[in-house]
């Protein structure tokens, strides 16, 4: 299971209130193949562990956009 999982890091500088953190996390976790989603408020960093075959990076960005925030994938 874990061997198919990759870690993707995204960034958003639109997070304005700590209450949006669980909102984004829950939206990401609802996607198929997403094992872990963590949003860091102070730095605007979003870490996702997911199976790229079931949910790719574009789908992650999409899901965050639906929660209402623009996020960009980052190499680190």
């Amino acid at each position: 299971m874990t061997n198919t999982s990759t870690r993707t890091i995204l960034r958003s500088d639109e997070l304005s209130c700590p209450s949006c953190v669980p909102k984004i996390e829950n939206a990401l976790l609802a996607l198929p193949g997403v094992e872990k989603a963590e949003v860091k408020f102070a730095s605007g960093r979003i870490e996702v562990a997911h199976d790229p075959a079931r949910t790719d990076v574009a789908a992650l960005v999409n899901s965050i956009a639906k929660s209402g925030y623009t996020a960009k994938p980052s190499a680190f």
Partner: protein
Amino acid sequence: MFSRIIDILRHPVSRRKWLTIASGVLITVALVAWYGFGMAAPWAPLMTIAAVLAGYDIALRAWASLRLRQLSIELLVIVAAIGALFINNHWESAAVTFLFMLGAWLETRTMSRTRGALKALIDAAPVTATVLRDGQTIEVAAHEVALGETVLVKAGERLPVDGEVIDGSAAVNEASITGEPIPAEKAPGSKVFAGTLAENGLLHLRATGVGADTTLARIITRVEEAQEAKAPAQRMIENFGRWYTPGVFVLAIVSYIVTRNVELALTLLVVSCPGALVISTPVSVVAGIGRAARSGILIKGGEHLENAGRITALALDKTGTLTEGQPRLAEVVALAGQSEADVLLWAGIAETGSTHPLGRPIIEAARKQGPLPTAESLEEIAGMGLIARHDGHQIAVGSHRLFDHLKIDFNTEAKDGIARLHGLGHTVVIVARNSAVVGLLGLADMPRASAKPMIERLHALGVHRVVMLTGDQRPAAEAIASAVGVDEVHAAMMPDDKLDRIRTMRAEGLHVAMVGDGINDAPALAAADISIAMGASGSDIAIETADIALMTDDLGKIAEAMEIARATLANMRQNLVIAVLTVVGLLFGVYTGTIHMAGGMLVHQLSVLIVILNAMRLLRVPKATKARAAAQTGERAAA
């Protein structure tokens, strides 16, 4: 058209902006109609619509938090706004929701500016890299470069990977890593870092670190972790916030029961929003850490920032920290009527056969005064020195032991000279010609030029005790200490002694920072309140383990780190005072009846903005630092 509106409404940031603008426009129209034209009819409906527009988003957020079983600030506001509508106070309801939205929008904008200090670092890493594959240059994503692959970097480009130069040369600006504005010359064999800028030339690199495995990426990760790591003051406030909001509801209900004044109870809900209080410390921490990162100073979290801001004593090693870490020729003493130049020349001739580390500075100094002739014969006596023949004379150069071995005696002049040089902390090399001592060379690890100003800056900051802990002998230690202005010297120390010293200092009530190289100083570093590693750009261990990592070995950064920590701590306290005074002042105003709902919201939102703007002051580079940097650049340009 319609789908665009949907898009705008779906995206919270733009939705909030437009809801705020619409609400503001309606309020203005109602005000103009009433005061300008005396029209009373539009007042209540317009104000109600304005309140609903602005309140809609607040209600959504209040509901989202409520589902997560949190009583949020938004809930306080929305209850107050709905309550105001019920008691027919339309203006108050519209003003409260509008001001809350306006404030939140401004806060988002300033908050992302505060985060922006790191954005420059993140943006420093290029997205693509030009690599040489099968003899062809192709462009690939920067994180897809394979280790060991050849990467090409042209003038004006940023380096996409960590690597080693294999061909070409360039002046590379490493400010993104080290905070150092002066470019470093890179030639084959040099190590280079992703995110640095090639100002000229063409470089061929062998990639040694890619993507998340670059020094830049590690720094960014560390800084972000640090910004998330909570300062103790911050944790206290969060615990406080947990019972604060429910407490406000209770207070409002009790106030209503006692005074039977609905408006007073609702105003209480509005003015007690803990906004400024909740963000007062994190916003300072994020700004302070971001500001430090831009100068090549990595502070590993709010807790370390708070600790560093309280430092009253600094302990540091001598060799390589206060000194250059390499022996230099400090003094030439000519004896028996010889000239200093000749003494150095003879010593230089003999030292060409030396493999000893003390040989190099002597040869370098001798070469500076002219060409160095080759000796006819050379013999190295291990652990003692050298014997050379040149131009028919025998030259002996070495320590005391060589001369005992050769049975050459010292006269009083030589003995006095040796004693004097030892007293200065120098290592003494004795030079003899044809079995007569003709001169002495004093070698010493010289203090760095930046050491004295750094210690003066620390003293000015209130770090009153700067303590040297060194494994070296006392005379050498004291010579350096008095040259750079160290307050206290502890010489001939073993790692355990250093540890004991730090413990003793802490027991005396001092807050101790320790600067060390992270390996043999490890126990002492761990015992100190704050550990500082220098010149960390090449070493992962230093970045990982130290509380504060300085990316260069510029001593000035120690003082700068302390200055930033102190400024941040002061900023945090100012913010707390502003936040607490606002809440107390507002509560007082509400109970004395001088503050109503709209005014209360305005003051409250202003206090939040003031707190953020105050934190943003930390992002500025102080004038003194700029002036120093300019002076340094000037000096180097002159040299």
